[in-house]
Each structure stands twice: as structure tokens, then as C-alpha cells.
């Protein structure tokens, strides 16, 4: 079986800088200004890829959670946790950049009547409850199991929510892809796809970074436990009658 070797963190970081930097350059110097929205539409190349990556992170977490429940391997639980963590960070960025775009386009920071905005906020708040739910359980194994069940249930909610919003009738939020008008022109679509690739790379790099930090943290804890348990054992062996000391 062919095993794909993961690129190093440094390679991923460099690729992210190149692709995301290139995408932003394309957005400002290559993609034409939108006839309807004008220059404000440049936010689209930032906001939409961030939102897609946030939702993708939540779905990825559900996949890892399924793997965790199937195999019992704690690494999948850690990956699900990190996916949700990154999803929340990207979700925060999507909400903030979306609010700035809404202010420029609609004159309001937030529109409660708009299903796209409200549904994204619901999904975001749903995942924000993941942390208190997880850390309310002390037993590590139960904590991981319950967190996986949550990640699967909430993950199933993400595509359902997306479909429900698409079916909703009153929409102020623009529908860019797969519209009857033919969607994005070539230059805009190309720029958007490069921006999406860059944002996905950023997500993957930050996730890898977070996982590496978590693994190091775990190894430090193991080392501390080993050193701490060695000291009393050695002392006891010296004190005990017939001990080596």
C-alpha cells in the first residue's frame, strides 16, 4: 500500500504564505471590480474561504470523532478537538469579516432577518458549547467519548443547515455559486479558488502546529510523571531494609 508522507510544518507554512499571499495579490491586482458591489466585493476573497474552512473544520471533526468511536484511538479525539478549535477561530474571523462587509454593503453590521447569517451564528454558538461540555466531564475516557458524540451530531447539523438556508426564500445575502445567472466570471473564480486553497492550507498548517504543540505538551507531562515517580521509588529503595541503597 502506498503511504503518503505528510510535508513538514515548515514546508506547509511556506506554501501557505506563498499561496495566500498570491491569492490576495490576485484579488487586488488581477480580479476585476464587481459591477454591482464595486471595491467592497474584495472582502469576498477573504470572508467566503474563511467561512468554508470553518464549516469544513466542523465536518472534519465529525469524521475524526467517528474514527475515535470506531477505533478508540485517542489521537482521533485530539484531532477532532483541534479541528473544532480551528473551526471556532475561523468562524470568529468569518463573523467579523462578514459584519464588516454587511456594514459596507447593507449599511448594517448584522441583519437578523437573513438566514445565512443567523444559521452560521447558530452553528458557531453550538460549537462554542463544545469546550464547557468537554471540560465539565472529569473522567478522560468519558470526556473523549461524549465529545465525539457531540462532534458527530453537530457535524451532521452543518450540511443540513446549509441545505435549509439554500432552500429559504427571502435572501439578501448574495448567492454567488450555481446561480441561474451563471455564477462568477473566470478571473474572479480563479482568484477565489486560489484564496480557498490558501485558506485551506492555513487551516491545515495551524492544525498541524496545534497538534505538534499538544503532542509536545503530552510528552512533557509524561516526562514529569516519570521523573516524579522515580524520585520516591528510589528513595524508598534506599530506605527499605535489604534495599540497594
Amino acid at each position, binding site marked *: 500500500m502506498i503511504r503518503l508522507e505528510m510535508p513538514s510544518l515548515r514546508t506547509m507554512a511556506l506554501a501557505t504564505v506563498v499561496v495566500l499571499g498570491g491569492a*490576495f495579490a490576485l484579488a487586488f491586482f488581477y480580479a476585476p471590480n*464587481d*459591477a*454591482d*458591489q*464595486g*471595491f*467592497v466585493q*474584495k*472582502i469576498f476573497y*477573504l*470572508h467566503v474561504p*474563511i467561512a468554508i474552512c470553518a464549516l469544513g473544520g466542523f465536518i472534519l471533526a465529525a469524521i475524526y470523532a467517528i474514527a475515535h468511536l470506531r477505533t478508540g484511538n485517542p489521537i482521533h479525539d485530539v484531532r477532532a478537538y483541534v479541528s473544532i478549535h480551528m473551526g471556532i*477561530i475561523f468562524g*470568529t*474571523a468569518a463573523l*467579523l*469579516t462578514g459584519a*464588516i*462587509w454587511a*456594514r*459596507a*454593503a*447593507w449599511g448594517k453590521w448584522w441583519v437578523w432577518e437573513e438566514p445565512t447569517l443567523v444559521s452560521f451564528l447558530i452553528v458557531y454558538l453550538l460549537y462554542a458549547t463544545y469546550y464547557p461540555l468537554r471540560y465539565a466531564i472529569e473522567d478522560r475516557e468519558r470526556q473523549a467519548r461524549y465529545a465525539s458524540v457531540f462532534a458527530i451530531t453537530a457535524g451532521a447539523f452543518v450540511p443540513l443547515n446549509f441545505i435549509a438556508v439554500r432552500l429559504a426564500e427571502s435572501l439578501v445575502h448574495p448567492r454567488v455559486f450555481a446561480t441561474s445567472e451563471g455564477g462568477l466570471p473566470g478571473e474572479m473564480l480563479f482568484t477565489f479558488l486560489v484564496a480557498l486553497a490558501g485558506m485551506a492550507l492555513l487551516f491545515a498548517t*495551524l492544525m498541524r*502546529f*496545534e497538534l505538534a*504543540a499538544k503532542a*509536545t*505538551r503530552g510528552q*512533557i507531562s509524561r*516526562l*514529569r510523571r516519570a*521523573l516524579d515517580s*522515580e*524520585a520516591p521509588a*528510589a528513595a524508598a529503595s*534506599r530506605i527499605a531494609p535489604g534495599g540497594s*541503597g
Partner: protein
Amino acid sequence: MPALPLDEAGKYVAGAYVVFVALLLIYVAIMAVRIDRMREELSDLADLAERKARSTQHAAGRPQAEADERSREVVG
């Protein structure tokens, strides 16, 4: 949806990109603090391990020295 003039739209576009970069910087700063804490903890553990190694050598050193002394006597 009438398009905003460039000078008006520019500040919103700049704002959105600045927010993104600021969030990224906050994340990197938090990670830097966490990594610095891990570095400190690792340095503590290295000190602890060195102290242990020294005390173990010290404890094992005496019987070893006695054994060396005996072997020198036998050879001599």
C-alpha cells in the same frame, strides 16, 4: 445594492483584511506564550533529570570506588 465610492469602500476592505491579520497575530502570540511556557517546563525537567543523574552517580560511586580499590589490590 449601489456600489460605494472607492475611498469609502477602501476602509471597509482594509478593515476586513486587518481583522484577519490581527486574529492571526493574536493566535500566533498565544501559541508563542504556550511554547515559551513549555520551554521553561522542559528546562526545569532537564535540571531535575541532571540532579537525579548526579545523585544516582554519587550513590553508585562509593561501591564502585571500593570495587576499583579491591581490583587494584588483586592486580597489585
